[in-house]
């Protein structure tokens, strides 16, 4: 009679990587709903196309690398990457944007670095940044939200959207700037006046028509993930706190040089998506609690700095990638104090012989 040999523990908790990823997918739904409600079905189409392409790319690369395809597909990580990229892309962007973005996310950012768990950068953000730099025109056009449409104008329907995506059929009056974009282009108006003159702000409650609800949607999803203990609160909270602090500091009483109100920064652009779905990507973030606080704060500050003083209206992708680079460095100096030790030792310390 021979029994199975295994190292303890013999009991195992119920969570699995696939569970974690499924929860993340589930948590994107409120945000996606808000996006669809205000900007039409473009984001849904994006998400579906990106998700599909991501899984396809993943399978192809696994095949090439001679790894078990189904085993790895079942962890849903590729799907998550695709979905997150899809949420970040402007609605109704051409199909080749989706293909290039997803392809570079999965192949370049993930598998060339060794696949799941080895990528130093957030794959979705790598894909996004590649697109943003290569195709700035396509990437900075965003659909106009439902509230600012002209009288009689309607949201883009799924069919005309698909037509535009696949066959470059023209869409009328669907594009416009984002609230952050508009704010950036402001160079002489007081904030008050700018808000009054632009319908995008005028029809909004706090930050920008549609955008505020999208962000609230992602915030809800993020809270759900926190509740499910999928990740710890450290990164998102410190990132949001940093953005809040920066925007309070540089609000400048709404002068023409104002950096924008805290509301604008917290509730427009990709702030909440970034805080809860991008910055929390465990693979590419710092590992300890203290490290994650620093990591999140770094992203928050960078987001604000690039938004206000940089060249791009939104900056979550750049900020995340920049902090990805810094993550190992943060890790070295934020090893927690171990039980029985007087103080934490930096990981760079040479072991005593």
């Amino acid at each position, binding site marked *: 009679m021979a029994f199975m040999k295994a*190292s303890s523990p013999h009991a195992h908790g119920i969570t699995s990587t696939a569970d974690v990823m499924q929860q993340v997918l589930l948590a994107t739904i409120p945000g996606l709903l808000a996006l669809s409600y205000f900007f039409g079905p473009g984001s849904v189409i994006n998400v579906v196309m990106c998700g599909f392409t991501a899984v396809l790319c993943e399978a192809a690369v696994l095949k090439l*690398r*001679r*790894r*078990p395809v189904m*085993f790895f597909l079942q962890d849903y990580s590729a799907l998550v990457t695709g979905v997150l990229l899809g949420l970040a892309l402007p609605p109704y962007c051409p199909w080749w944007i989706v293909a290039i973005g997803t392809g570079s996310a999965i192949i370049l950012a993930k598998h060339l670095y060794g696949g799941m768990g080895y990528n130093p950068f957030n794959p979705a953000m790598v894909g996004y940044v590649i697109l943003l730099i290569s195709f700035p025109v396509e990437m900075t056009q965003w659909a106009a939200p439902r509230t600012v449409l002209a009288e009689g104008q309607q949201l883009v329907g799924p069919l005309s959207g698909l037509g535009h995506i696949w066959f470059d059929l023209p869409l009328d009056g669907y594009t416009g700037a984002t609230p952050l974009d508009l704010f950036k282009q402001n160079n002489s108006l007081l904030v008050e006046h700018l808000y009054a003159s632009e319908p995008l702000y005028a029809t909004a409650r706090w930050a920008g028509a549609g955008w505020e609800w999208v962000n609230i949607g992602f915030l809800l999803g993020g809270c759900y993930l926190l509740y499910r203990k999928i990740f710890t609160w450290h990164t998102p909270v410190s990132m949001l706190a940093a953005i809040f602090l920066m925007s309070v500091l540089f609000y400048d009483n709404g002068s023409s040089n104002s950096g924008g109100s805290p509301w604008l920064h917290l509730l427009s652009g990709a702030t909440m998506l970034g805080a809860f779905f991008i910055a929390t990507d465990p693979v590419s973030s710092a590992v300890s609690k203290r490290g994650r606080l620093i990591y999140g704060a770094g992203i928050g500050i960078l987001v604000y700095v690039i938004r206000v003083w940089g060249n791009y209206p939104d900056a979550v992708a750049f900020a995340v990638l920049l902090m990805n680079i810094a993550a190992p460095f943060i890790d070295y100096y934020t090893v927690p104090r171990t039980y029985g030790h007087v103080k934490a030792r930096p990981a760079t310390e040479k072991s005593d012989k």
Partner: protein
Amino acid sequence: MIQFLLDNPFLSALVALVSLAVTFGAVLGYAAVQFKVEGDPIVEQLDALLPQTQCGQCGYPGCRPYAQAIADGDAINKCPPGGQATINTIADLLDVEAPTLDEEHGEESEVKKVAYIREDECIGCTKCIQACPVDAILGAAKQMHTVIASECTGCDLCVEPCPVDCIDMLPVESTVSDWKWHKPEPYYQRASNIIASDKTSGAAA
């Protein structure tokens, strides 16, 4: 003087450069003397990394001489008892590319060995005692010899001189006290029992 320099930009640049060079050279020279780092001499560090079997397979009469030789520029891949691990650590220390073990000097052995004297066959010739680099063999002329197993480095040097071939190199048996868990296989090999990884397929090609 200043006027002259201002009038001759070429000369003034030359003077500036030279004076800079002299100043910095002096500073650097002073620093080199004053703040010299007294580290372990490299030979000590190398010696500490070598396995101390004193087997002489590297062609030097012991580990320290070999450490000296490495410090003087000899190849670092001549130590079979240390194996690839030692080569890697030495390469780390010297900041060079780690070569593979030079098979000319012997092969790396998986198991550790100790010498064992079949005592009823020993004739007491003391040759092994003289050969042992770490004095790990006890005995006297015409008396049976025996190996102090805990001190034996497994260097093999006593086997050859024995006139009656009564010395065996026995593998060290593992016991419960020195048993250890083995490292689990990487996840992708456990995943589906496929062996193909980037490494193995590369090696096969």
